[in-house]
C-alpha cells in the first residue's frame, strides 16, 4: 500500500531528530549538476558529483555505518551554503565537516582549506606547506579522492606549469568553479 509523501517525510525527519542515523543525505541541484550531499552528526562527510544514490550509498555505509537514509532536512545547511557559493555571494564555508584522515593527509587538507577563494596553488606548494615538499604526487592523490570537493577546494590546486591537470569531478567542472571564483590562472607564482 502506497506510503504518502507526507508520512514518508515525517518518518525521515523523525529518524534525524532522534539521532538514529549514521549518515543523512540528499541530492542538491547545482549549476554543475546534481550533487550528493551527505552529513553525519559531526558534519558534512561527502559531496559527490553525478549523484547516483544506488551507487553512492554502499561506500557511505561501509565508511560510516549502515544506517544511511535520505533526509533532505538534515542537509539544509550545506544546501544553503552551496547555493550561496554558486550564486557568488559566499567565498568560504562555515558548515562543520567530518573527515577521517591520517595525520599527513589531514595537514594537507588543512592547508588546502586555507587556499583563498579565487586563488590557485600547486600540488608541490601544498605538499611543501604540509611539511613534505617531495610529496606532490601524494597530494595529487588526496585531491583526487577528496570526499568533500568544493567545500575543501581542491579545484584551486593546479599543476606547476599552470595546467588544470585533473579533477575528480572532471576538468570541465574544475574550470567552471575557477571561472565562478574569477581565478586567473596566469597569476601563478
Amino acid at each position, binding site marked *: *500500500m*502506497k*506510503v504518502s509523501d507526507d*508520512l*514518508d517525510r*515525517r*518518518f525521515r525527519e*523523525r*529518524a534525524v531528530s*532522534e539521532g*538514529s*542515523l549514521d549518515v543523512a543525505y540528499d541530492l542538491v541541484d547545482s549549476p554543475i549538476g546534481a550533487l550528493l550531499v551527505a552529513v553525519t552528526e559531526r558534519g558534512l562527510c561527502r559531496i559527490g558529483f553525478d549523484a547516483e*544514490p544506488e551507487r553512492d*550509498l*554502499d561506500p*557511505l*555505509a561501509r565508511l560510516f*555505518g*549502515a*544506517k*544511511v*537514509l*535520505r533526509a533532505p532536512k538534515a542537509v539544509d545547511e550545506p544546501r544553503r551554503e552551496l547555493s550561496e557559493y554558486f550564486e557568488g555571494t559566499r567565498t568560504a564555508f562555515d558548515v562543520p565537516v567530518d573527515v577521517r584522515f591520517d595525520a599527513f593527509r589531514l595537514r594537507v587538507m588543512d592547508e588546502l582549506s586555507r587556499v583563498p577563494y579565487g586563488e590557485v596553488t600547486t600540488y608541490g606548494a601544498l605538499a611543501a606547506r604540509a611539511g613534505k615538499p617531495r610529496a606532490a604526487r601524494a597530494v595529487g592523490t588526496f585531491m583526487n579522492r577528496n570526499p568533500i570537493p568544493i567545500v575543501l577546494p581542491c579545484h584551486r590546486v593546479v599543476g606547476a606549469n599552470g595546467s588544470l591537470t585533473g579533477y575528480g569531478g572532471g576538468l570541465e567542472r574544475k574550470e567552471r568553479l575557477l571561472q565562478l571564483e574569477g581565478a586567473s590562472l596566469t597569476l601563478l607564482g
Partner: protein
Amino acid sequence: MMEAVATIPPFERFYVDHREGVFGFLVRRVGRDRAEDAFQETFLRALKSYESLAHAGNLRAWVFTIAARVAVDDFRKRRATAAEHEPVVEDSRPAYAELEHLAGELPPKERAAVVLRYGYDLEYSDIALALGSSEEAARQATSSGVRRLRRKGVTL
C-alpha cells in the same frame, strides 16, 4: 535450501524495499487511523536495532515481526486506556517475548513464521505477506519450525 548470507544493505534501500508492504500490513492490523504512527514506530525500532543485525537473511520477515509487535503494543495500550478504571491483570511476560527467545535458533524464515503464528496469532495470509511468500509456503515454514522446536523438547 541455504539462505545467502549477505552484509546488511544501507538502511535507505531496506526502507524503500519494505515501506509499502509494512504499511499495508499495519493498516490491516491496527486500522487506517493508527497505521501512520505504527509505521513510524516500526521503522524507528528497526533503525535502532539495524546495526546489531548480523546479516541480511530475510530482512522482510524481520521488519514484519517488528511491525507485528508494534501492532500488539498498540492494542495493549488502547486496551489499557479503555480499562483505566479497572484493575488490569496481565501476564508479566507476553507470549511473543518468550516465543522469540525459544525460536531464536530457528532459520530466519521459520522463526518469523512461528513467532507470527503462535506469538501474534496472525492468519497465514498475513504471515505470507510478511514472508513475501505464498500462503502455502507460510504454512510449511510454520509447521517445519514447530517440528524443529518439538525435536528440542519445546511444545507450543
